[in-house]
Structure formats: C-alpha cells, structure tokens
C-alpha cells in the first residue's frame, strides 16, 4: 500500500486539510485564544450536519436526480414531536426518540411514494412534501417552546475531556453506514442502482425496494437529527433545520460523493462537515457581516468544487 500518496490523492482528505487550514486561520486571528473551545464547539455542531449528510449521501448515491429537499421540514417536525412526547421527563426519552425516527420514516416513505407512484421527480416531490410537513409542524407546534428533558439535553451537550460524546457516537454511526454501503447486499444495490438503474433491474436487483429503503433511511436520519438538535439547543422550533438543506448537499459533494450517483464517500462527509462548521466559525471570529459571510461561504464552496473538478471515469477503451 503506497500509503502517503494514495492518501493525498483521495479527494476527501482535502476536506480535512481544508478544515485544518480554516481552523488555523481562525485561531491566528484570535491569537490562539479559545482554540480548544473552538474545536469542541465545532465538533458538537458538526454532528448535526454529519447525521443529515449521511442520509443525503445515500439518496444522492441512488442516481442522478435523487435528492431529499424535505430534510429541514422533517427536522423541524421531528424536533416538535419528540420533545412533546418526551414531555420533559427523562423516562420518556426512548419514546420520544422512537417517535422522531418514526416521523422521519413516514416522511421518507411518503417522499418515495410520491416519486414512485405519482411519478414526480425527486427534487420537486421532496420540495412539495417539505411544504406540507412545514404546515403540519406549524399547526402542531403552535408556537409552543417545548423544552427537552434535562437529562437528555445534558447528555447531548456532554463532553469528556473536551470531546463531545455525541461526536464519538456519530463517528460510530458513520462507520455503520460505511459498512452498510460496502459490505451488505443493500449497500451494493444502492451503488448499482446509482450507476446504472436499468442494468441493476436486469441483474436481478430489487431496484424499487432499494430506493424505498434509502429514502426511508434518509428520513429517519433527519428525524433523529431533529430530536438531537432540540436536545442540544434546549428547545424545539420550526426553523431549527433550515440551514441543513444546503449544508447537507454541500458536505456530500465536497466530501467526494458523486452527484451522478453510484459512488459514495463516508469519510468525506465527516471532513466536509468539520470544514463547513469551522469555516463559519472563522467568519464569525473575523466579525464579518451577514452579507460578507454568505458571499464568502458561497465562493469557498464553489472554489472547492471547481478545484476538485470531476474525477469522472472516462472510458479508456474507445472500442
């Protein structure tokens, strides 16, 4: 194994380098003050991007056109549902979490049914469902600021030696997803469907079941994220998921997963999430205005994608 050169040639390692670079810029601005806190906070925040990034990655890998734009609404509704059911009591945490997962699962299945049974393209289907879910959330939540149970909220915020426990758990989750993708028949089916859906059908793969399972999985991860976010920020609300629409897609692509489908990259999700969170932290440290922050974030995302290019496989055999 030519370790050093292979490592450098893999696209996703750059996202970790990018994260490190941005971090260095940030602390050089503060003169090194608060570096440890910055890392801890970044890790805590990256957790939420990673969870939805993993779900979005699976959906995008299903093939061109597949994307889940209902994640923000999903997150919002799940945060309200889970907090309501937990009802401030630690003994009901499991119930609340299950409800959040179930809510996300339902949204995922609904998305899939719209795509499959009604024939609506995924972009528009998931967008439309996000509208509907948003209304449900508004009607359900009715502005009540539901607080999470104290034990649950504390756990989400728990750190051991400056490392958030949630970050460790999310790394385990990522490992699980990677294993699912590479070493199970389901994961292989997702990759096959993403690369050539017709070939997958005629190779005997249960294409529609694979798609359904993937949208369901993504939905569940969104639901989970809703509950976790409500715990971390100590309260549920409708807009809690809004920023995750664009960031979930951005970490998938910056992390090296192919938008054309059929090729997924789990470590990239971790690196890219860290990178995005640290980028925002750096901009905040610099004290820039909202407008500059947006322009800078956008240019950086665009620049990263342009620099990486598209290592799409060109056919070396012309005949």
């Amino acid at each position: 194994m030519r370790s050093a050169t292979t490592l450098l040639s893999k696209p996703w390692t750059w996202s970790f380098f990018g994260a490190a670079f941005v971090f260095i810029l940030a602390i050089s601005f503060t003169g090194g003050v608060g570096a440890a806190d910055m890392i801890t906070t970044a890790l805590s925040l990256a957790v939420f991007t990673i969870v939805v990034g993993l779900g979005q990655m699976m959906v995008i890998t299903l093939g061109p056109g597949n994307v889940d734009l209902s994640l923000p609404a999903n997150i919002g509704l799940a945060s309200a549902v889970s907090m309501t059911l937990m009802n401030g009591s630690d003994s009901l945490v499991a119930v609340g979490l299950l409800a959040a997962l179930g809510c996300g699962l339902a949204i995922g299945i609904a998305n899939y049914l719209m795509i499959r049974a009604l024939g609506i393209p995924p972009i528009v289907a998931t967008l439309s469902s996000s509208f509907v879910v948003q209304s449900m959330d508004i009607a359900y939540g009715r502005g009540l600021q539901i607080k999470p149970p104290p034990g649950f909220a504390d756990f989400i915020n728990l750190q051991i030696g400056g490392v958030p426990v949630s970050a460790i758990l999310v790394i385990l989750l990522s490992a699980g997803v990677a294993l699912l993708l590479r070493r199970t028949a389901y994961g292989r089916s997702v990759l096959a469907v993403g690369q050539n859906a017709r070939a997958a059908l005629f190779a005997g793969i249960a294409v529609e079941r694979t798609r359904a399972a993937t949208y369901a999985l993504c939905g569940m991860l969104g639901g989970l994220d809703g509950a976790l976010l409500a715990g971390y920020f100590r309260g549920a609300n409708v807009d809690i998921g809004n920023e995750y629409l664009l960031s979930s897609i951005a970490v998938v692509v910056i992390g090296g997963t192919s938008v054309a489908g059929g090729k997924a990259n789990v470590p990239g999700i971790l690196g890219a999430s860290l990178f995005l969170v640290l980028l925002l932290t750096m901009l905040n440290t610099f004290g820039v205005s909202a407008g500059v922050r947006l322009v800078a974030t956008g240019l950086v995302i665009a620049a990263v994608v342009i620099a990486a290019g598209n290592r799409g496989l060109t056919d070396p055999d012309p005949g």
Partner: protein
Amino acid sequence: MLHSSPARVMRDLLPALSLALVMATIALLNPRAISYLGFTLMLNLAVPIALATVAQMFIIAGNDLDLSIGPFVSFVSCVGATWLIDKPAAGILLLIMSVGGYAALGAIIQWRKLPSIVVTLGMSFVWQGLAILILPSPGGTAPDWLQALMNIKPPLLPFPIAAALVIAVAAWFGLMRTSYGAILRGSGGNAVAIARAGWSLLKIKAVLFALAGLFGVFSGLALLGVTTSADANIGSGYTLLSIAGVILGGGEFVGGIVSPVGAIIGALTLALAASPLLTFLNIPPDWQVGANGVILIVVLAARAQIGRKAVGT
C-alpha cells in the same frame, strides 16, 4: 406508428389543461376574478416568475440545474432599486457584468465538468450575500421607466398575459425554430454527438448560461417594476418555482427536452395556484404553505400519469 398519437397530443396539451383547470376553479369560487382587472391583479407576479422560469429552462435544456436563480433575481432587483436610480450607468454595467458572470460560470462548469447543482448552490450564497450588501433592509424605489413598462394597459389582454405571450413567442422562436437553437438543445440530448460534429460545447454552455442570466436580469427588473421596492429575500422562492414551472411545462431534467411555451404556461399556472387560488379557497394561513405543496403534487402527478399513457407504459 410513431407520429403524434392521441396520447402524446394529450401530454403536450397538459400544461394548458392544468392552467385551464386552475382558472376554472378560480372562476367557480370568485367569478369576478375572471376579468381584465382580476387577471391583472392575480397575475401581476406572473411576469417575473415566467421570466425566471425561462431562465431555468435554458439551463435545464443543457442537462444542468440552476439553484441560484432565486437569489440572483433578488440581487438584480436590489441593484435596480438602488444603483439604477443613483448611478444608472454603473448599474447597467453591473447588470451586464452579472450576465457575463453567468456565462463564465457556464464555461467553467463545462470546462471542468462540474456538477451544476453544487456550483449554483454555492453561487446562490454569493448572490444572496451581494443582495444583502447592496440593500441590507428592504427599500429603494423602482426607476420610472420600469414602473411605466410594468403598468402598461394593453387594449384586449391584461398586461401579464400579453407579456407572457411575447416572452413565450420569443423563447419558442429562439430555442425551437432557429438553427442554433437546435444545436443548443442537441447539447442536452447528446453532447458527444454535438462535439463530434465540430461544435464547441464550451461556447454552447456559455451561451445557455448567458441566456439564463439575461432572463434572470429581466425577471429581477420586472419584479422590481411590479413591487416598486426591493427586498434581498424576495426571490428565494423563485428557484423552486422556476424548476417546477419548467417540469410542469413538459420539460425533463435530462435529455434536452424542454418546451418554452409549456414553461410559460406552467409559470402562469403556478402563479395562480400559489396565492390567488388559495385566497379564494379560504385556506387558513398556517396551511397556505402546505396547500402550495399539495397543489404542486396534484398537478405534477397528473402530468406524469398522462405522460405515462402517452409513452405506453
């Protein structure tokens, strides 16, 4: 055996049928809305939406997607409300440069073979940020000539419908009837074939994106003319509205299959369904957003079902 079956005709007429259905529903609920004044009011936002939809159509024709058109429209209207009034020459130059920026973006996407979804996603942040920098809080005014244009009262047709007609004819002619339009569309159908025939894909992509930028500028200015003041956040819904309009109008994400006329009709349908229809149906405010979603689902499902019958699956 393969020439215009009844099912295919039906599929092509679907956008018009959807529009008719929405109008019929409105007529049922509020007959007075079906009048010159009624249409002018209900559809006053339809013109900027239609222009944005045409912009998206050029991008989709090339197998790409522009997730930044909404913020771009906001940006243009902000420029219009400030620079075009205070320093018009600089403002016009800025707008021309932004069309150039769109063209450059298209060229980079083609040159580096990038996924347009992500690049335009990044650009959406950029346009949004620029809009906020130019106009931090809603305000500004529309230039007189712009307001005058958007307030024209043509004799027979309400202005929005007349404008939509003009835009539809122009877009249809340019993309579907000219010889270079065939090349542009061909790049979405089989880019390799177009390249093999000696055409420059780089130039084609730049042209498609430049056209999108141009119509984006028209859209932003039209929006400003109608609302007479600008808001950096106003265009955010336009991205998804424009995509829905193209698809509703018979376009497909892949294959270079788009219909300019269908896209305009789709935009009109969505403009009507998005707000006026809901108001007449007395949907409570909490559920307005959800109702938009349901309408989108119903209309697109219908299109897909009829489309399936046309293809014979």
